[in-house]
């Protein structure tokens, strides 16, 4: 499973049961990256995509995603140790947070393979970092 996560400068993901932020350019990028594969999401995450987006919606997407599938984690469990690849997106902004992603990826054997900045719709600069297990 390929894990997708968005975080702010403090590693935050959500605040008060809601995502910190979203961006349509990022969503389009995710759909492009996952084209030809399954993109698993929870019902909450599905609502940020347009109707008809090619999503696999599940109450337990982290359990349903198979090898080679993608799982965009927001409000669901995050089985990082089971991931083959991690796509980490940084908003490069600071928001309030009460749910964070603070896993030390290198401690789990992940190595950063790529880092790329791109302009979002409502974010000046979003950074995409890709981590893979050696």
């Amino acid at each position, binding site marked *: 499973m390929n894990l997708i996560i968005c975080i702010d400068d403090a590693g935050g993901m959500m605040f*008060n049961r*809601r995502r910190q932020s979203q961006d349509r350019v990022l969503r389009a990028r995710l759909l492009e990256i996952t084209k030809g594969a399954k993109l698993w999401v929870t019902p909450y995450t599905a609502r940020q995509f347009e109707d008809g987006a090619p999503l696999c919606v599940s109450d337990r997407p982290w359990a349903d995603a198979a090898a080679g599938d993608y799982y965009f984690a927001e409000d669901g469990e995050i089985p990082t140790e089971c991931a083959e690849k991690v796509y980490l997106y940084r908003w490069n902004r600071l*928001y309030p947070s009460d749910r964070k992603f603070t896993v030390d990826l290198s401690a789990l054997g992940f190595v950063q393979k790529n880092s790329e900045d791109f302009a979002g719709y409502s974010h000046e600069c979003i950074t995409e970092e890709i981590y893979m297990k050696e």
Partner: protein
Amino acid sequence: MFDFKKLFEKRTLTRALAALLLALILCISACDGQGTGMESTAADTTAPAEQITVADTTQEETEPSSEQTTQEEAESDSETETETEQSSEEQTTEPEATIDLSNIPAYSGSEYVTLNDGMPYFSASELVTESYETYGELDALGRCTAVIACCGKDLMPTTDRGSISSVKPTGWVQAQYSIVNGGNLYNRCHLIGWQLTGEDANERNLITGTRYFNEAMIPFENMIADYIKETNNHVMYRVTPVFEGDNLVASGAVMEAWSVEDEGIAFCIYMYNVQPGIVIDYATGESYLEADGGPTTPGEETTQPDDGLLHLVLNTSSKRVHKPDCSGVAQMSEKNKQEFTGTQEELDALLAQGYKLCGTCH
């Protein structure tokens, strides 16, 4: 000429007053176990709403002109809203939201605490999709009161930020400490952040807040601003400074937000106006280092003239920022000496360029 802005402010003030009355009703019903309020889950509405109480004041509401009344009626969006506005206009006293500080835990290391399970206290009638901003009148002591806005893209600034140094909020007794980021204890803190409504030197929107308090507010404003930019939706946003008794410095502020078109944004928090390591006399704004155990001698920690600006001396060679009475200034070569008079923001810009505060005098 007809003052549409004034009318708009008046109309929205009326809405806000009506909402505060509804908040009282909400408090009562919540206490009775009749939770209503936000359109959310049942858990979201069973709230400790008694944390906010509503009290009457003796301030009389200015009667709108007949022209304004006609315009207000014409602009009413719904029957319910019209009824609410009419009802509030019959009031002879102006309700004012007050926060019972006894229900707020003492600061214990976190910049804020969540109130009401994170759900704001807006009434249904306040949740509109037409942008507006209302800044409450200063009270008898010259202190800011609640500000409320329906934030939309159309309220966001389109020009560069202007100076706010002309405003001297209550309790503005500036002091500098080396343990404070940037040196200055106080900032002129926007209640509604500049990035949301572009307000510069609006005395109704600026309070004396610590650097720590000011920095802690920014992530919440970022979240609202980016949400609006992305969705073009509206966010109801209210910031209520909380003053204990006749104190001139706010103890903190209640920050409430709710995205009107969906549930993308929701929070209700109390932000502490504190500065770790510094003891503040909230009655006056004076302060001292906690480690010193007592107030500073005037001129020892506080060297700023009472004009709201920073008066410092720069060493353009060593890139150090000195207080005027620092021994380093006397030893400084004249060609490297440059006087600095400016705002905290301007000092921050210098620090960002590589200047550092002198370790001796700061």
